[in-house]
């Protein structure tokens, strides 16, 4: 399975290189490439991009940290695309069109990931709702405020609240 995946990816990569006019074949020599940029903003864009793109053949590493050959090739591809004037969105779209959403460490917002992005808000709202209810029901610090006729009801409310 692994080697099949690898073969597919390297073919895909060859196709990418073939069709991307203006992108030079990367030199094959270093893991840490001393790259040249026209401006420091290009360099910081490059660093941000390779930190959020996944190396597809590694266990769980981004392009920046991976020593794999594919990761190096994709780093150089990113570098070349930046130098040739592509925007971040274009580079990301390019990667996704080749490798799918798997290449993105920041999952895109779409129907299948809506739950992923919205759930934290949901958890927090439920938590705040429960918090609010507990605050309201436990507010009576000194029971003497409550008239004796109401005490049983208060106790029942507090019990009900706690079991939820």
């Amino acid at each position, binding site marked *: 399975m692994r080697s099949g995946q690898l073969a597919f990816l390297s073919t895909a990569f060859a196709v990418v290189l073939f069709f991307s006019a203006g992108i030079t074949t990367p030199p094959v020599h270093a893991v840490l490439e001393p790259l040249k940029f026209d401006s420091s903003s290009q360099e910081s864009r490059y660093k941000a991009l390779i930190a959020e793109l996944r190396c597809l053949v590694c266990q769980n590493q981004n392009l920046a940290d991976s020593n794999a050959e594919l990761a190096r090739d994709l780093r150089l591809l990113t570098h070349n695309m930046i130098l040739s004037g592509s925007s971040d969105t274009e580079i990301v779209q390019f990667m996704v069109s080749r490798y799918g959403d798997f290449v993105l460490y920041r999952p895109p917002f779409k129907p299948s990931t809506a739950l992923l992005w919205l759930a*934290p808000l949901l958890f927090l709202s439920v938590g705040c709702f429960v918090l609010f209810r507990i605050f309201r029901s*436990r507010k009576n610090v000194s029971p003497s405020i409550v008239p004796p006729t109401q005490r049983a009801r208060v106790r029942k409310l507090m019990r009900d609240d706690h079991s939820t």
Partner: protein
Amino acid sequence: MIAELGLLALIIAFCTAVVLGIVPLYGSTQRHSICIAVARPAAWVQLVFVSIAYGCLTYAFLDNDFSVSYVAHNSNSKLPLLYKISGVWGAHEGSLLLWVLILSGWTGAVTIFSRTVPEEMIAKVLGILGLVSTGFLSFILFTSNPFARQFPPVTEGRDLNPLLQDPGLAIHPPMLYLGYVGFSVVFAFAIAALITGRLDMAWARWSRPWTTTAWSFLTVGIALGSWWAYYELGWGGWWFWDPVENASFMPWLMGTALIHSLAATEKRGVFKAWTVLLAVFAFSLSLLGTFLVRSGVLTSVHAFASDPERGLFILIFLIIVVGGSLTLYAWRAPGIRSVPGFNPVSREGALLINNVLLVTTTATVLLGTLYPLFIDALGLGKISVGPPYFNTIFIPLTVPLVIAMGFGALCRWKKDTFARLRADLSILLLASLVAGGIWPLAMNHYSFAAASAGTLGCWAVFTAVRGLWIRATPGRRWRGLVQTPRSYWGMTLAHSGIGIFVIGVAFTTIYSMEKDLSMAPGDRISVGRYEYQFDGVQNLPGPNYVAQTGTVIVSRDGRTMARLSPQRRRYLVQQMPMTEAGIQAGFWGDFYVSLGERLDDSGRWAVRVHYKAFIRWIWLGALLMAAGGLLAASDRRYRSVVRLPTREPAPQTAPDLTG
């Protein structure tokens, strides 16, 4: 022979665990005193035999007994002694044996340190721990026997994974497991209390030191793992939100929530049902962590399929533990009452906010870790959930948590008012704003993010220290500080640790610098205020590897600050290349250099040069948290009922109102 002895010891330990899991539990429900009395000796017998089994496996490593399959796969005659000892837990079978050894150790510790707890309760607690041991021992015996022989035997072992040949990673798993497994004691106390239906303040008091101790070990374990990733993986990162990291972080978050909820339960008798639930979840997440890491389900779905037996076993075990506990909970919870009321502005209120935020965070980490699995299983495609997602969610949840922490530490129990707190809070807030706002001026550029994080960190430290100051009664402060209980000191340390951690994380992210360079011998490059000079690479042999060692001299204004030796190693047996970063640690920042590959014959190398600002503050913060936890767990009042005659009389302490 030794291996067979080990297996025999393991089988005896298993039988003892079965007895421990059945007899005392039966005895305590039937009030059968002889059955109850079985608990303590059985716990000891189990510990002795698991220790023998563990000793046998260690002996097989030291003896280079490569007829034992596990040793042959994870050791080598040239492996240094330290790594032969730590190699025992270097892979699946041995690390499970370590897990069971630590579980037996915690079980033994319960028999020693819980003399204040009634015998019937202890019998239940030990019985439940026995059931957990039974599960893990049968897992080892039926799916992961570390003593299995291989035929024909080999003359040389395949060596320990080079990544694990490192002192930091050698002690990382035992620390982590001490934490994970420690939550089983808390779990056992919670289940025992649920069985009896007596969730009183005494139960919370018994549980607290165990929870805090386990949590402290887990903190140290996670910090060690992060430190190891920093210097061993060679790219200078310290946390990647990797599923394996998340697996240890989730029980930590839940344990943190549990510590705070237990405080309210013990002091004020509130949140009882909630606290029990947290105890169950903390242990369940520890088991889930083991399942995720051990089954291989996370790194690759195919690894899971290649060894479905092990994954399935833990999954079933997990379902029994979680399902059983929740059923028991559903049955008992309606009878639990937490009567005392409190104001929203009170320490109870702040602790509730803490719990809501921590549980939300845990749930989010869990969701993010498992989401790719669900999506894949449902056939909706493959996605990755990585640092950008977790950071986006985690930071907005952590900021209010730290704000609430400072507030909660100053609040009184039961009822407080903003009017009373206003003077204190406004001075502390102003001081934090000033300190946090000025701090980035001392750095190489001003950053409002750094100023905000600095303010938040200072707020955490200032409020914690102020709380301690108030706690020490006015008029006789120094004596008051000495007499302040250790639990309060522990809280102050841990909360300050959070502040230092926050500053460390933010400043490392904002003020670190890195450059990828191609350097020939004699080349100089400046990074920030420092100059890095590359002095070429030499070949050096190691015990079981060969290394190319570079030399980089760091200087500032002509004065030498550090001499770094980054290495590239090739381990001879597994032919695996490894990088060892050259690091000079400093309080304000680390010089960090890693060596890439040789670029040409003239001695030109690819070099990655970093300056990691404030990175040590991250682990310093974690160590303060752990130290605070251990200090709090050693507080006198957890031992107060014991009062052995040999102990010196306790000095008169002020009535404990706040800690």
